[in-house]
């Protein structure tokens, strides 16, 4: 009975694996509906190096009243833009071009406007005491640390929360205490035009404020927040060029990598079967699941963008999954050589090998976590991919392989030859150990 059930399980798993592979690789129209199913592998976001994306160049102009050299200001602006853009597009690169330009590259984006709307139409932000174009600005964009959408539930109003820098907070405190004394309005200018003029009712300390009124919807308030934030750049930006670019590694890079990966996978499958026979087949089934699960996760997880180093991460994860199986099978071999029966060898082999596998995987996980935490751009992307690969690799090796082997033992647990194992002398020391343990 057990045997029948195990065979049924295997047949089921093979069907799932084949189905999984089909769903991973192929895209097709779903019959009787208007929907198209997109293969998991097609859903993976690709980096600029593999797929291309958008690029834009901004000219930088020094704001009239600014301090410091243009170079310092451009650096500060790049830092600011990097923070802003990488939040939504982690693989974006923002670099200085020439003496007074900033170049932005974002992979896998079809419409440059998607990204450019984030940067906004940059405009200088000014807080003034009087309603006049020429009046001196008490606070400028450089005093603002962040601006984001917020909802005032008490008055049911959409608005923008502004956080000032330390210096800005002091300035804002002084300004509001001055204005609130005579209940006069604060004039907020954006790009030289009066944006709003709220009346200051009280002194505001603490370095934050909430601007509301006249913003009809969340979208409008968010647009204002972007505008204000874009006014905080140290330099005035104007778009000089935007364009769509093709894969930087060359058009065929991805296709060739996939072909190489598949050939590599097949060679590994053959190798595992030749060396480990039925155990090898089990490993191959587990490796197939590694590939499918990984592809699904990579396409589903929003923070993953696949780049060339990421592909290396996937291959190394596969390498570690293969390694895990080899470590286990070699252990099982050792155990049977010392005279144990196959089921007992599998049990203790797994137990002993698991320690080594967990330790070696955790060191890699530690490395990838630190890189994901501290790394920037492509390094962070690589760390995420590696992390996901290792976790999936551990799962398929320690759990799936084990379940499959146990099923296989229900089918046949006596043929050393079929498992590529060597039978050792029966009455051996380790066998005695086993008796003791039992």
């Amino acid at each position, binding site marked *: 009975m057990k045997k029948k059930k195990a065979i049924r399980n295997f047949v089921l798993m093979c069907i799932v694996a084949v189905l999984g592979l089909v769903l991973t690789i192929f895209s097709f129209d779903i019959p009787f509906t208007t929907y198209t199913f997109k293969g998991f592998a097609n859903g993976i976001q690709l980096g600029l190096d593999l797929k291309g994306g958008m690029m834009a160049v901004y000219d930088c102009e020094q704001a009239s009243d600014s301090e410091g050299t243009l170079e310092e200001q451009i650096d500060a602006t790049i830092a600011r833009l990097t923070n802003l853009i990488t939040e939504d597009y982690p693989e974006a690169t923002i670099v200085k071009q020439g003496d007074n330009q900033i170049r932005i590259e974002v992979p896998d984006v079809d419409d440059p406007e998607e990204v450019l709307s984030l940067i906004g139409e940059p405009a200088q932000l000014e807080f003034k005491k009087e309603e006049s174009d020429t009046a001196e600005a008490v606070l400028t964009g450089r005093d603002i640390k962040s601006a984001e959408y917020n909802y005032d539930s008490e008055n049911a109003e959409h608005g923008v929360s502004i956080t000032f820098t330390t210096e800005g907070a002091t300035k804002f405190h002084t300004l509001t205490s001055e204005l609130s004394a005579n209940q006069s309005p604060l004039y907020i200018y954006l790009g030289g035009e009066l944006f709003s003029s709220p009346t200051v009712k009280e002194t505001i300390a603490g370095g934050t404020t909430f601007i509301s009124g006249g913003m009809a919807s969340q979208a409008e308030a968010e647009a204002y927040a972007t505008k204000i934030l874009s006014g905080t750049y140290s330099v005035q930006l104007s778009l000089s060029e935007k364009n769509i670019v093709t894969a930087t590694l060359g058009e065929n890079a991805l296709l060739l990598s996939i072909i*190489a990966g598949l050939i*590599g996978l097949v*060679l*590994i499958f053959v190798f595992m079967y030749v060396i480990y026979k039925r155990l090898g087949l089990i490993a191959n089934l587990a490796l197939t699941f590694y590939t499918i699960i990984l592809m699904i996760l990579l396409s589903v997880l929003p923070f993953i963008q696949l780049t060339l180093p990421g592909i*290396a991460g996937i*291959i190394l994860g596969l390498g570690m999954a293969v390694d895990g199986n080899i470590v286990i099978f070699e252990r099982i071999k050792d155990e049977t050589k010392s005279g144990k029966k196959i089921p007992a060898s599998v049990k203790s082999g797994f137990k002993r090998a698991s320690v080594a596998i967990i330790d070696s995987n955790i060191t890699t996980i530690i490395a990838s976590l630190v890189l994901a935490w501290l790394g920037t751009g492509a390094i962070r992307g690589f760390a995420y991919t590696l992390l996901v690969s290792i976790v999936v690799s551990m799962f398929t090796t320690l759990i799936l392989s084990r379940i499959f082997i146990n099923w296989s033992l229900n089918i046949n647990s006596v043929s050393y030859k079929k498992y590529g194992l060597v039978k050792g002398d029966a009455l051996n020391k380790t066998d005695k150990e086993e008796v003791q343990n039992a």
Partner: protein
Amino acid sequence: MPKSNKTSLSQKYNAFLQKDFNIVKNWKYYFAVPVVIILAAIIVFACIGFNLGIDFTGGTIVKVNFGTDITSSQYTHYKATIEDVVKDNGIVNYSLQREGDTSNASISIKFQDIKNYNEEQMAEVITSIKEEITKKINPSNELSNFEVEDSQRIGASASSALLKNALLAVSIATVLMLIYIAIRFEFASGISAIIALLHDVLIMCAMVIICRIQINSSFIAALITIIGYSINNTIVIFDRIRENLRKEEYRKSTNAALFETSLKETLTRTIFTSITTILSILLLAVIGVSSIREFLIPILIGLVAGTYSSIFVSGSIWTFIYKRSKDKKLQKKIEEEKNANKNKVGNPEEKIVV
């Protein structure tokens, strides 16, 4: 394959395992190999420096606008023409990229300054490149909107800040790995594993300098890949050492003998795993495009260095610095065994050692 052949191979392998490897005894020879490689790299570095890529040095962008759509065969043709012009003008490091849309296709050329050329000389080179491109692609003005844009300097995209950041991340990762290994194993294993890791990284850098491979951001990514991966080989061997240390039969053997036994017990795995991993990466390097090769060759070097260090470097270092008397976990285990044996005195049969 005839069966007898196969058995003879496995017999040969078993006979090989019976031999003394004497890795620890001959440590000087095995350590000499990386030292020689690193020294050679230092000499090469002192004489001609290293080959920094455009990511680090910055360079020039020249953009060629066609003013109209181009077919992919046209693109291939233009690309080859431009490549020839760039090479003929003495540029060594360059990359071409297709840009633009259907109404205005363009190719942008990124290249690095020629070594030892000053600004004026480079300006001459750039002017001549631009002129020649126009002459070769659009000699009689048949592409009416054809234009070679003014060249622009591009800053280093892999700035020193990025490098510093990567270095910081790697240092912290290394320290955390050291702590983890020290807790799970003991301090000597941690130190030896980290030295092996350092070895792999140094060898990668050395080989890249010797082979004049361009150092760009994909090399940094390759280094980081190896840092994450190469420690596994060492861990598997150290895991076996940890296990064997607990066995009574090895209580009296030397560190060197213990390491050698553990190495032999895991050697099949080391060989199989190295074969499969190196093979997969090699395949990708052979089949893939040249820019991918640039990234994978350092990784291959790192993988080979990692296998070498796990066999010939980390074990010897461990042998030298590991002291059983200072291994608290081991001492505790021995203590427990003693107590257990005392209690078992009544049953002498259990104590027969085969």
